[in-house]
């Protein structure tokens, strides 16, 4: 048996044929259209490999975004067959249907061009949720000791591996229905900071997550947890925020504080 026959029968290769790839193009004022490309299928091919192949060998005008290619930087997320995924770590065997693939820019975000979403709204909401460190000490003060096995640290650790890829934000139906909703990623980071003993302005975070665009808008559909490539669970973080805000509302101190403000 010759080696050529081997390729034909596909003893080593799952499918040596061509893949039909539909890509959503346009954005930023240009008319949007779906363009089809034929890409040779190879072993161990990721969705990012497919997009790169098109850009390198077929159509250099295709725009997309990536950096590390190993699932750390969170810049290559796209909609693949209608679902948000980190394309550099998505093997096409897992997503291909009838030898075809549909790739679109991340949902719930404006498009700059082709597969490049504008992430400004996503990161603006992190700021709006006060999901940023509020320093409690200067470099002249002694270092804060936070035992790794303390319950607060454990809770903060649970969701700390977020790579800001916006997959959860694109997956969220509540963001789609309510564009000002802060979304799972920002709320999850806010929860992490609330559990961080080194954060000095927890009141600001509480205010930010309890407002009209805050955590109470979440309808617990759970797509964020379902699609998170790092298998984090923003649902747990948002439920934690809801529980704590309710406890606060019913606690005596908050009642007294409110009266004092009036």
């Amino acid at each position, binding site marked *: 048996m010759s080696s050529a026959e081997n390729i034909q029968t596909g003893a080593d290769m799952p499918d040596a044929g061509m893949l039909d790839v539909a890509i959503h193009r346009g954005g930023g004022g240009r008319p949007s259209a779906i363009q089809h490309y034929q890409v040779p299928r190879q072993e161990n091919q990721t969705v990012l490999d497919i997009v790169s192949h098109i850009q390198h060998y077929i159509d250099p005008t295709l725009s997309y975004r990536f950096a590390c290619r190993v699932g750390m930087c969170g810049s290559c997320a796209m909609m693949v067959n209608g679902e948000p995924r980190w394309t550099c770590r998505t093997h096409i065997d897992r997503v291909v249907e009838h030898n075809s693939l549909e790739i679109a820019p991340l949902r719930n975000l404006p498009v700059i061009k082709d597969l490049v979403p504008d992430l400004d709204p996503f990161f603006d909401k992190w700021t709006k949720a006060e999901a940023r460190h509020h320093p409690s000490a200067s470099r002249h003060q002694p270092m804060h000791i936070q035992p790794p096995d303390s319950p607060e640290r454990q809770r903060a650790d649970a969701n700390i591996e977020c790579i800001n890829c916006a997959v959860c934000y694109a997956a969220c139906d509540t963001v789609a*229905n309510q564009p000002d909703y802060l979304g799972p990623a920002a709320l999850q980071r806010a929860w992490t900071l609330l559990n961080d003993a080194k954060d000095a302005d927890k009141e600001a975070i509480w205010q930010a997550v*309890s407002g*009209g665009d805050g955590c109470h808008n979440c309808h617990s559909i759970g797509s964020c947890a379902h699609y998170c490539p790092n298998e984090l669970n923003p649902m747990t973080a948002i439920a934690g925020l809801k529980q704590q805000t*309710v406890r606060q*509302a019913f606690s005596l101190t908050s009642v007294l504080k409110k009266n004092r403000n009036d």
Partner: protein
Amino acid sequence: MIDARIYIWQRLSAMIMIPLVLGHLAVMIYAIEGGLSVGEILGRTQGSLVWLIFYGSFVLAVSAHAGLGLGIISAEWFRLTPKIASLLGMAVGLILLVMGSHAIWAVTFALP
């Protein structure tokens, strides 16, 4: 749209309704047997303080719960501004409260 206050009222009214809905489901399945009649319904409710309290709290809770829920849906699905959506929700809640109270009054104090 949904801030902490709306959320708390929504969950609170829901929790009040847990025993009430269970009771209502049980009564419906028990009482329906082949259809309803005026005598059957009024026989239970007429002059009964227990049913008055049961359905009175039910109407209160459901008016709040449905008003808030409808406000949220009109903001998210029908794209009304939060202000108009909550006004609409409040109006619906009020209509339900008035109509519900009237219905309870009717079945409690109707002449035999």
